[in-house]
C-alpha cells in the first residue's frame, strides 16, 4: 500500500518532509507498518515560468520551426519552437536557460542559425502526462513570469507500506490514518460531503438479487444518471499517480480514489450494459466463460462467485469487472456497487483465476461490511461533482443478516502475565480508544472492548493484548531472561548420535557436505529401497526423495570430478526416504564416499589412489571409536550396486548392519563417474544400537619386545587366517599383531604371496627374557607350519 504524505494530509494535519520522513518510517515500522521504501518526489520546477507568446514568425531555414517572442515577466525572450500548435497570445510553460530535464539542460543555443533562449514545453516534458501532441497551453489567468512551481510544483514523500495479512483496514487512507493519528497525536478528519439525490427512486430502475448470501452477505448499489465521462482533474490524477495507479477516466478514477480512501473496493458498471436492469449474485456454472476488463478470457468453475445481469456475468465478484460492462466515454448512467463478500469465496476466485487486484487483495483479507453507505455516497457525491449527472434516490441495499460487532473482555492481569511487564491501565484505555476499540471498565481487572467490524482480525482476548503491546511500543519491551535448568533430559538421542557420528567422521579427515533431499529418479534406481515421488516437482532433477545418502554423495563426487577436483573424501548424515509395504518411511542415515587421490604427491612420497583398504580403514576405525569389537566383516549379502569382489558386509549378532566397498561399474556409470568409488552407508538407528563400553586396561610396567615374521603362502590364503593362528599360539604375552608388509613379485613363486607380521610381546609381571620370547616365537612358527600350509621366510 502506497501512502502519499501529501494525500494523507487531507485527513491528518501533520507535515511530513525530508527532515522527518525517515523517522516517521521508523516509528511506523515499530507500530507494525514497515515501509519497503520511502520515495521522495520533488517537482519544484526551478527555472520554469509562465510565458506569454507575443509574436510568432516562420523560421527562415526550417519549415517546421517557429521563432517566437515570449514575455516571461521581466523580459521578452526569443525562443525557437518546434510544436505545430504554438500561436500568438497563448499562455505557455517556458523552460528558461538553466532549466534541468532528465537528460538535458536548457542552454542558450542557435537553432538553424537563429538564437533560442529557452523552450516552450509540452505536458510530457513537464512530467504531467504522456501527452506530446504539442506545447501545453495554460489558462490566461496566470501572469507571465509566475514560477511554474506555483501551478504544478509539488513535493511528496511516498511510503511503500507492507501491511500484514490480517490488517485489511489499513489498506486505505482512513484506516491507515486512524493508526497515523494515534502515532502523531493528531485527530483524523473524516471527509465531509453533501450528496443530492433526484426524485427518481433507485428501486424503480433496478432490482438486485443475492442467490448465495453466504458468499455475498451484503450488496449495496447506487445509480447515477446523465453523467459525462471525461478525464479527471489534475488533483485526482496526481493522487492516483502518486500511489501507482493509472488515471483512466473520471468515474473509474473516483472508484479507485474511494477505494484508496476507504479501503473498501467498489465497482462502476455502465448501467446501460446491465441487461434486464437486474443484478444477480450467484456462483458460476462449471465451464462458464467470462472476459475481464483487461481482456483476459477465463473458464470458470462453480466455486467462483459472479455478479450477473439477467443474461450474462458482468463481474468476477470482488476481483475484477467484465469487459462487457465497463465505464467508457460513452457511458451516461453508472451503477455503483459496494459489496461485502465472504473472504474464502474471493480466495477461490483468486486461486482459480490467478488475478490479484487492488480489490481482491482487500476482500480476501476482510473489509468492513458496515461502511457501505459512506463508501457509496462518497463516490456518488464525487461523481456528481466531477462528472455531473443526478444520483437517484436511495441506496439499493441487500443485507439480510447484519454482521455485528464483537465485545471482548480484556483482563489486565492476563495482559501483564503474558507480556511480562505492566502497562498502565489508563494508557491501555487511551490507546485502544484512539484506534476506535471502544473500552468500558468492567471491574478493577477487566475492560470490555467493543471491536468495530473493520477489525475482523480481533476475535479474542489475545488479539487485544497484541493491540495493547503494539500501541505501547515494541521498542519499549524490556529484555528479561530467567535462568533455570531442567532436571528432565529432553535431548533427542538420535540427534545426539548424529552429532557424534559427524564428529567422528570429521576427525577422520572427511569433509561434510549438505546435499538436497530431492534427486532425479535415475539416481535412486541403483539402490534397494523404493524411492518416493514428489507430486509436483519443481523440475525433473528434483522429482524424487533420495533413498540413499549415496545418491547425493555420488552426484556430488561426479560434479567435483568434472571440476578436476581429484581427491574426494566426503560424508553426509541426513534423511533418506522410501516406501515399504505401501508405507512411507524416513530414516536418518550416513554415508562416506572416497574417490580419486588419497594422499596427494608430496616431495618425498608418491601419490596414492583411494582403494578398498581406505574405506575399510574408515569403517574399522569407526567401530573402534564406538568401542564396538563384536562386528564381523563378511563377503556375503552384498547388494547389487556394490562390486562383489571388493565389498564386505558388516554383521553384528548375525544381523547385517551395513555394507562397504567399491561401487559396481553399472552404478558408477549411472552417475557418469569413470573413477573407482569406495563407500559405506549405515542407518543412524543401527548405529545407536552399538553401545560399546570404554574399559581402561591396566598398563604393563615392563618393556615391550617386537618381532617380525614373514610368511609365504598361497595366493588365495587370507591374512586373517594366519593372524588367528598366530594369536592361538601366542599366549597371553602376545599383545598385538600388525601386518607390516605385503609382497608379491619376482623373488617368489607367482602363485604365492608373502605377508610380514609384527608381533609385540609384553608381560604384566616381569621383563621377558630373550629365551622366553624365542620360546613363544618358535611355538608360533611351529603352529603355523602345523595348522596351515605356509612357509616361514
Amino acid at each position, binding site marked *: 500500500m502506497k501512502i502519499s504524505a501529501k494525500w494523507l494530509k487531507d485527513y491528518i494535519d501533520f507535515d511530513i518532509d525530508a527532515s522527518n520522513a525517515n523517522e516517521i518510517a521508523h516509528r511506523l515500522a515499530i507500530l507494525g507498518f514497515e515501509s519497503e521504501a520511502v520515495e521522495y518526489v520533488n517537482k519544484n520546477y526551478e527555472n520554469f515560468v509562465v510565458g506569454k507568446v507575443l509574436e510568432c514568425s516562420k523560421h527562415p531555414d526550417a519549415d517546421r520551426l517557429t521563432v517566437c517572442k515570449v514575455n516571461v515577466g521581466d523580459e521578452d525572450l526569443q525562443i525557437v519552437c518546434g510544436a505545430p500548435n504554438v500561436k500568438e497570445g497563448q499562455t505557455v510553460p517556458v523552460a528558461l536557460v538553466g532549466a534541468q530535464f532528465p537528460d538535458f539542460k536548457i542552454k542558450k543555443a542557435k537553432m538553424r542559425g537563429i538564437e533560442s533562449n529557452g523552450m516552450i514545453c509540452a505536458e510530457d516534458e513537464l512530467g504531467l502526462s504522456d501527452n506530446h501532441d504539442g506545447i501545453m497551453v495554460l489558462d490566461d489567468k496566470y501572469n507571465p513570469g509566475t514560477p511554474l512551481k506555483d501551478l504544478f510544483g509539488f513535493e511528496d514523500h511516498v511510503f511503500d507500506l507492507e501491511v500484514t495479512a490480517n490488517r485489511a483496514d489499513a489498506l486505505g487512507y482512513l484506516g491507515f490514518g486512524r493508526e497515523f493519528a494515534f502515532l502523531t497525536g493528531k485527530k483524523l478528519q473524516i471527509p465531509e460531503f453533501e450528496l443530492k439525490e433526484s426524485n427518481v427512486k433507485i428501486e424503480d430502475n433496478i432490482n438486485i438479487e443475492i442467490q448465495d448470501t453466504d458468499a455475498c452477505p451484503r450488496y449495496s448499489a447506487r445509480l447515477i444518471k446523465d453523467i459525462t465521462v471525461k478525464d479527471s482533474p489534475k488533483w485526482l490524477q496526481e493522487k492516483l499517480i502518486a500511489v501507482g495507479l493509472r488515471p483512466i477516466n473520471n468515474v473509474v478514477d473516483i472508484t479507485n480514489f474511494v477505494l484508496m480512501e476507504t479501503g473498501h473496493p467498489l465497482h462502476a458498471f455502465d448501467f446501460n450494459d446491465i441487461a434486464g436492469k437486474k443484478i444477480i449474485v450467484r456462483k458460476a456454472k462449471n465451464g462458464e466463460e467470462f472476459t475481464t476488463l483487461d481482456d483476459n478470457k477465463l473458464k470458470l468453475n462453480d466455486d467462483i462467485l459472479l455478479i450477473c445481469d439477467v443474461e450474462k456475468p458482468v463481474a468476477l465478484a470482488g476481483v475484477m469487472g467484465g469487459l462487457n460492462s465497463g465505464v467508457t466515454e460513452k457511458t451516461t448512467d453508472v451503477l455503483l456497487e459496494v459489496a461485502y463478500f465472504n473472504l474464502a469465496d474471493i480466495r477461490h476466485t483468486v486461486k482459480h483465476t490467478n488475478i490479484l487486484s487492488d480489490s481482491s487483495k482487500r476482500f480476501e483479507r476482510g473489509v468492513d461490511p458496515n461502511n457501505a453507505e459512506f463508501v457509496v455516497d462518497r463516490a456518488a457525491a464525487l461523481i456528481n461533482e466531477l462528472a455531473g449527472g443526478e444520483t437517484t434516490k436511495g441506496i439499493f441495499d441487500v443485507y439480510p443478516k447484519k454482521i455485528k460487532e464483537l465485545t471482548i473482555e480484556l483482563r489486565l492481569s492476563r495482559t501483564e502475565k503474558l507480556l511480562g511487564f505492566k502497562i498502565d491501565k489508563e494508557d491501555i484505555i487511551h490507546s485502544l480508544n484512539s484506534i476506535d476499540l471502544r473500552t468500558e471498565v468492567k471491574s478493577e481487572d477487566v475492560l470490555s472492548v467493543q471491536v468495530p467490524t473493520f477489525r475482523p482480525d480481533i476475535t479474542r482476548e489475545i488479539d487485544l493484548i497484541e493491540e495493547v503491546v503494539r500501541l505501547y511500543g515494541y521498542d519499549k519491551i524490556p529484555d528479561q531472561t530467567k535462568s533455570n535448568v531442567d532436571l528432565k*533430559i529432553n535431548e533427542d538421542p538420535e540427534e545426539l548420535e548424529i552429532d557424534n557420528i559427524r564428529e567422528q567422521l570429521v576427525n577422520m579427515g572427511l569433509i*561434510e557436505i549438505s546435499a538436497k533431499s530431492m534427486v532425479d529418479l535415475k539416481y535412486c534406481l541403483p539402490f534397494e529401497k523404493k524411492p518416493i515421488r514428489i507430486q509436483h516437482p519443481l523440475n525433473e532433477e528434483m522429482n524424487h526423495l533420495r533413498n540413499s545418502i549415496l545418491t547425493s554423495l555420488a552426484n556430488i563426487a561426479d560434479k567435483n570430478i568434472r571440476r578436476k577436483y581429484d581427491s574426494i573424501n566426503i560424508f553426509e548424515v541426513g534423511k533418506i526416504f522410501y516406501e515399504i509395504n505401501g508405507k512411507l518411511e524416513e530414516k536418518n542415515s550416513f554415508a562416506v564416499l572416497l574417490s580419486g587421490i588419497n594422499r596427494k604427491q608430496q616431495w618425498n612420497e608418491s601419490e596414492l589412489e583411494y582403494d578398498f583398504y581406505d574405506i575399510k580403514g574408515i569403517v574399522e576405525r569407526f567401530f573402534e571409536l564406538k568401542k564396538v569389537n563384536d562386528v564381523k566383516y563378511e563377503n556375503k549379502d552384498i547388494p547389487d550396486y556394490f562390486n562383489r569382489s571388493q565389498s564386505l558386509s558388516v554383521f553384528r549378532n548375525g544381523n547385517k548392519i551395513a555394507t562397504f566397498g567399491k561401487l559396481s561399474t553399472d552404478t558408477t556409470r549411472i552417475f557418469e563417474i569413470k573413477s573407482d568409488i569406495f563407500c559405506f552407508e549405515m542407518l543412524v538407528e543401527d548405529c545407536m544400537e552399538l553401545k560399546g563400553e570404554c574399559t581402561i586396561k591396566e598398563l604393563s610396567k615392563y618393556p615391550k619386545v617386537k618381532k617380525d615374521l614373514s610368511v609365504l603362502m598361497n595366493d588365495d590364503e587370507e591374512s586373517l587366517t594366519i593372524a588367528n593362528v598366530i594369536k592361538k599360539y601366542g599366549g597371553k604375552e602376545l599383545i598385538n599383531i600388525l601386518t607390516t608388509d605385503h609382497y608379491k613379485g619376482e623373488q617368489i613363486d607367482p602363485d604365492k604371496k608373502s605377508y610380514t607380521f609384527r608381533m609385540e610381546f609384553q608381560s604384566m609381571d616381569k621383563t621377558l627374557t630373550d629365551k622366553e620370547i624365542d620360546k613363544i616365537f618358535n611355538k608360533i612358527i611351529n603352529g603355523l607350519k602345523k595348522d596351515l600350509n605356509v612357509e616361514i621366510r
Partner: protein
Amino acid sequence: MIEEYCQIDMKEDKTDNLMKIDELKQLKNEILSEIGNSSTYEIVEEKRIKYLSKKGMIPELFSKIKEVQNQDKKEFGQILNSLREEAYELINRLKAGFSNNEDNKIDLTLPGRKLPVGKYHPLYKMRDEIKQIFRQMGFSVAIGPEIETEHYIFDALNMPEWHPARKVTDSLYVDKDSQLLLRTETSSVQIRTMEKSDPPYRIICPGRVYRNEKENSTHTAMFMQLEGLYVDENVSFAELKGTLLAFFKHLYGQETNVRFRPHYFPFTEPSAEVDVTCFKCGGDGCSLCKNSGWIELGGCGMVHPKLLENVGVDSEKYTGFAFGLGIERLTMLKYGLNDIRDIYENDLRFLEQF
C-alpha cells in the same frame, strides 16, 4: 695467557701463592671472551669441559680461595661466583644458538607435511553453534519427520484455510490423497512435542524444510530452519525478547541489540519480526543493512492460545513463546556469501575454505 698463568700458578704454588684481585678480574674477562669466541657447538662443549666441569679451571680456582689473603677472600669469592654464573649462562646461550646441527641442514622452504583434516559443512557448523548457545540457555534439541501430514503443517498451527502457505502449489506433496507433504516448517516438531508430553517445553527444532519455490540467489526449495519453543507458567513476551537478545549477543557479540517490529503470523499472537544490529557496521548503516543499521533475521511471538488448546494444554495456566530463524541466512551473513545455492552446491573447492 690463560694457559700460561695456570701453569705458573700450579707450579709455583709455594713461591707466590697469593693471586691478586686485579689479576683475577682480568682472568675472568679473558675466560669469558674465550668462551664467547667459540664458533661451533662442539667448541662450546670443549670450553665447558675446560672451565666448568668438575675438574675444570673454575672449580680449581674455587679451591684456591683458602690461599688468598684474608682481606681479599670475600671479594675473590664474589668474583669467582660471578665468573661461574656468567660462564654457565654464556655457554647455555651459545649452545642453544648452535643446537641446530649444521651437518643436517634442510631446505626450510619446502612445504610442511600436513595431516589430513576434516571439515564440517558451514551450514551444519552454524547449526551446531546455534544449538550450543540454546543448550546453554536450557533448551533441548527436538527432531521430527520431514514427511508430514497436513494436520501438523497447517491445521494444528492455526493456519487459516486461506493462508497463502496452504496453497498446494507452494508445498511439495508426496501423497496428496493421504495429505502427506514435505514439511514447510519445523513447527510440526513443536506440535508433536507438545502432544507427546505435558509442559514445560523448552526445545529448539533445527531441520530441513521444503517449499515449492523457484530457486534463486536467496531462495532454495529446501532449506534449514531453526524454530524454538518455550512453554511454561509465566513465560512472557519480554522473556522472548531477552532470550533472543541473549542468543544474538552470543552469536554476534556483546554489542548486538535486538529490535522487535509487530508482524502477523497465524501461529503466534502477539507476533514480531526480529531485527538485529547490523554486525558489519555496528548499526551505523552500510550496504549490508541497506543503511538501516538493522538486519531482519527471523520471526517470533507468543504461542497462539488456540495452538495450545489444540494440543490439550491449558492456555490460561501456560503461556509460551516461539521463534524461527533461517540457518542459511545466518550462515551467509557470517561468511559474507551472496548466493544461497553455493551452500547446496557442495563444490569442494568452496567447502575446503571453511
